[in-house]
């Protein structure tokens, strides 16, 4: 049995960490490198760092924060948010990213996948799938016309060569109300890739609900940033319930 992966998901804006709700209302959540070092000492399994300003096309990815973080931690690091071309991806790897996180660029530039795959391998590409639910139907956040089928989108990305999928439930993000269990179950049954789930986790019971339907990797934000949890405590809870976690 594999270890359950607990992965802090950190948003970067103006060289600070921020955290919001439903992808908006971001407030200051600390200094990036010291926070990452603290999370490492709490035995987080990986760290995902997403540059919000770059995602919103305000500026280029914040490579200096990435570099500063990778100099002081020895925890696997996924970097993304607004990476648009192979040069930016190369730079991120060179500065210490182990995986590249791509989301909106995958709608108009799928070629970037094969380019990264050729040089760095599929295992280095995490595809971000941002799901919004509207009138009980599920759509992709970036798909303004609400035409693209989520599963067709994911399958096409797998065909292009991504190695891992991160599912984010945008409506639940920052709300602590748990995840969409039915949709998660369907995703797990259809997608044969490692899947990280994010958005809505507010307590350990909600993580256990997801483990019971087959999920094993979780990206968490508000749970550790604004609550009295830390990674070690979450893992201790899971361990006490009989789940396999790494300390």
């Amino acid at each position, binding site marked *: 049995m594999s270890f359950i992966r607990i992965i802090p998901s950190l948003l970067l804006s103006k060289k600070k960490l921020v955290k919001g709700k439903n992808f908006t209302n971001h407030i200051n959540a600390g200094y990036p490198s010291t926070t990452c070092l603290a999370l490492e000492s709490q035995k987080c399994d990986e760290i995902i760092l997403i540059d919000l300003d770059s995602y919103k096309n305000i500026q280029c990815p914040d490579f200096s924060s990435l570099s500063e973080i990778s100099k002081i931690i*020895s925890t696997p690091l996924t970097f993304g948010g607004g990476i648009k071309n192979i040069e930016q991806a190369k730079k991120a790897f*060179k500065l210490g990213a182990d995986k590249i996180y791509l989301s909106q660029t995958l709608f108009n530039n799928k070629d970037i996948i094969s380019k990264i795959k050729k*040089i760095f391998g599929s295992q280095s590409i995490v595809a971000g799938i941002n799901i919004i639910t509207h009138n009980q139907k599920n759509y992709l956040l970036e798909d303004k016309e609400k035409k693209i089928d989520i599963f067709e989108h994911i399958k096409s990305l797998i065909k292009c060569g991504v190695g891992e999928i991160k599912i984010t439930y945008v409506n639940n993000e920052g709300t602590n109300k748990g995840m969409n269990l039915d949709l998660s179950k369907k995703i797990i049954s259809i997608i044969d890739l490692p899947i990280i789930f994010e958005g809505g986790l507010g307590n350990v019971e909600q993580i256990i609900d997801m483990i019971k339907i087959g999920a094993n990797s979780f990206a968490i934000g508000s749970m550790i940033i604004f609550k009295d949890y830390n990674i070690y405590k979450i893992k201790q809870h899971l361990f006490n319930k009989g789940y396999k976690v790494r300390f």
Partner: protein
Amino acid sequence: MKVGILDYNACNLSSVFSSLYRLGINPVVINKSEIIPKMDKLIIPGVGAAKNCIDYLKYNSLIEPIKVFLANKPVLGICLGMQIFAKKLYENGLSEGIGHIDGEVKKLNTKINFNIGWKEVKFFKKIDKEIKIENLSSFYYCHSYYLSSKKNDYCVGISYVEKNSEIPAIIFKDNFIGTQFHPEKSQINGNKFLEFFLNWKRN
């Protein structure tokens, strides 16, 4: 002690560099073949695709100097940096490896063709009495190809990707130590491993 890290233009060089730096070593980044013989130890990092890496090493005449170095001095290959020491590699088409390890690098034959995350390493031989890593310590993996070999004499530790699906975790042959996992990304256990390599003297 001069520790060189090979730069093949597609690796997580700075992570390996920073890990060593934190252990008190000031490593040398190597991108020219003539620097290799000046080193005492050589590390070849991972994160990359096999064909691209081998083509780069050949084009820049790095294969021969690595072989010569390996005959006398210790080399650590991490992930892809280990896999390139096999005879044949199949990622993005066939490429010919350095050939120090009698094996082939193939796609993982598991339900999910990727091994991303932490796995315990089961040691069945000790590389060295000096190694202070306990059996079943966990290390970080991120790969979809693995070293497959019929001769397992030089495999000292394995990990299970799935039940009954084992992969070599640590390879040890002559002056060569190879790891499928990433010590530079494996927190405390990884640091212990790198420290072991830095202090390692071939008997």
